């Protein structure tokens, strides 16, 4: 019996998927999956990640029996999938693929209602639910009558997700669903997907070759090695901090230390008060308030707008002291970090700021103060020391 490192969400509505020593050997002799043991807990996202050809797709497609295992069993809760007629099994499992695979001859609405139709559900209700789902995945209702060829890649992918969810299946399989869209849209789709999953609590198996995506989306991440061997199964933070072997360490990447900061809350950072001036104030004021040649400009509601260069040889050249500060003069380079940001975000805010001072804001975007990179690093050192002490304590 295999144990899952992540327990299912409380009240998760999905089934548990259990791989029991599953192997797949293709007729040409390729061993795509080798004695895989894996549990995808109910209501959680399990990500399968690994280099191209390591057997991710094969593993995923054995769940809905698009590929039959040559050995082993796959269980959905206490049902052996091999005992369920394939069409019946598949109608209960949502499936999303890279280019969505939408039916070109059917409208968006008809695409989404495909499975409810196959299941003989009431047409009216299926259509109502499809419209609801469109809204949930961020498609305006007037898209219902469009055809796939009239949609962009990102929009098609949203329809693909809605179609997979239409019959409310407890399990969703997703094979690199976001890798064919550009990075901006991909990030957007990922965020919306996480929100959606927060509401739905499906059991999801998600395949990707992108370790960043795996870490961002996974409740647990399974790293597969070419030859279909499971190299490590762990929550993302653990994968970064304790890679099981050199393969995982190599795959997770060189900047994993920096990425791991993305999982560590900054806690209460010692923010410093910052002298600010308001947009539209006289330029003379800026020169008086400047520190290190830069002054932070805010709007009337104390929300940071950008940095103003306040030196004599500034470029663009300083206006006369009486002239008001305009938006065009501001440097917009720095990122903002919120008060409960991760260490990674706080460090990035400091490193990207032209003044070297990272801007920290509260939830409504009002200025709290600034931090420098060395202050964030000090906090990192502090947390590391604390972490080491606690693990040493645990061992002794």
């Amino acid at each position, binding site marked *: 019996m295999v144990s899952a490192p992540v327990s299912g969400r409380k009240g998760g509505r999905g089934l548990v998927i259990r791989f029991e020593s599953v192997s797949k050997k293709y007729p040409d002799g390729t061993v795509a999956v080798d004695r895989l043991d894996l549990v995808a807990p109910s209501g959680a996202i399990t990500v399968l990640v690994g280099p191209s050809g390591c057997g991710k797709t094969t593993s995923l497609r054995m769940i*809905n029996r698009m590929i039959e295992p040559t050995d082993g069993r796959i269980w959905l809760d206490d049902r052996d999938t091999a005992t369920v007629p394939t069409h019946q099994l598949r109608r*209960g499992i949502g499936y999303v693929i890279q280019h969505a695979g939408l039916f070109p*001859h059917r409208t968006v609405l008809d695409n989404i209602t495909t499975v409810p139709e196959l299941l003989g559900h009431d047409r009216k209700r299926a259509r109502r639910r499809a419209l609801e789902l469109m809204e949930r995945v961020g498609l305006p209702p007037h898209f219902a009558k469009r055809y796939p060829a*009239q949609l962009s890649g990102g929009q098609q992918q949203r329809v693909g997700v809605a179609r997979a969810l239409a019959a409310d299946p407890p399990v969703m399989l997703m094979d690199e669903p976001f890798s064919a869209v550009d990075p901006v849209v991909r990030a957007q789709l990922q965020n919306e997907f996480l929100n959606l999953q927060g509401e739905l609590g499906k059991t999801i198996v998600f395949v990707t070759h992108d370790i960043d995506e795996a870490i961002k989306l996974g409740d647990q991440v399974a790293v597969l090695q070419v030859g279909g061997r499971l190299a490590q199964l762990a929550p993302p933070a653990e994968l970064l901090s304790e890679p099981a072997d050199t393969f995982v360490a190599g795959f997770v990447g060189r900047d994993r230390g920096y990425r791991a900061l993305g999982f560590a809350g900054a806690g209460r950072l010692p923010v410093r008060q910052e002298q600010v001036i308001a947009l539209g104030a006289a330029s003379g004021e800026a020169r008086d308030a400047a520190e290190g040649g830069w002054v932070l400009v805010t709007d009337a509601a104390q929300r940071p707008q950008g940095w103003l260069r306040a030196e004599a040889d500034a470029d663009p050249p300083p206006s006369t002291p009486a002239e008001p500060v305009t938006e065009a003069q501001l440097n917009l380079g720095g990122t903002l970090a919120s008060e409960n940001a991760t260490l990674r975000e706080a460090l990035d805010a400091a490193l990207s700021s032209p003044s070297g001072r990272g801007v920290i804001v509260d939830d409504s975007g009002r200025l709290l103060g600034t931090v420098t990179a060395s202050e964030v690093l000090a906090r990192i050192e502090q947390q590391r020391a604390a972490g080491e002490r606690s693990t040493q304590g645990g061992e002794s």
Partner: protein
Amino acid sequence: MIQWLNDPGNWTAPGGILDQLRAHLQYSIIALVIAVALALPVGLLIGHTGRGRWLVTVANAMRALPVVGLLILLYVMLAPHIHGKGDTVYLLPTEIVLVLLAIPPILAGTVSGVENVAPDVRDAAAAMGMRGSQVVRRVELPNALPLVFSGLRSATLQVIATATVAAYLGLGGLGRFVYDGQASQNYAERNAGAVLVALLAVAADLVLALAQRYTVSRGVSGRFPRGRTSEAADGPGGGDLRGEGGGAADGPPVTAETPPSPHTA
């Protein structure tokens, strides 16, 4: 010729234009119905399973046979064994040739239509829990329709043309005027027959083009109303819209693998 066409007697007399037009349509429709009934299901099956492609190759190779030769060969072979009344002795060999002729384009069109359905679309259909027959009826056939139609249209043209030649044997149809006019040196009648056959072929193609327009999904044919295209083309798949086609310019583009169908008669 205009005079000949303007003579109402030439239209309504027994064996006149109306009679021969009806006969021509009848021979053609019978052959096409049989050919579709045979070639469409077989083509869907070959396309769906990927097995039996050699049948398409054989059917295509048959296009090298000279139609007139085939027609006369079959007539000579069958005539001594047919003792029915009226036209049967001509009709049976002709219908066999017409069916044989109509099968290859319909079969080839259907098979490549199904094969052209994107693999991920079929995959999605199966993964959603469609049975094999459901995948064929709900996904493969609707997406193959443009190529099925282009096969059917080219079969129709060949059938109408060959039915004309069958008048040489003695069968009715508009070809009667061509051959009778030629034999009796009544060139007005002969030329009128030629024009009528040409008009019939164009009209039949037009009817099928209309049928195609109304049965093929806009999502497949790409006929979208203007101004309703995607506003946000944020990736591949966006803006891939084809304009309005029209008339004989319809149909998929020609490639090395899918050359247009030949005339054989």
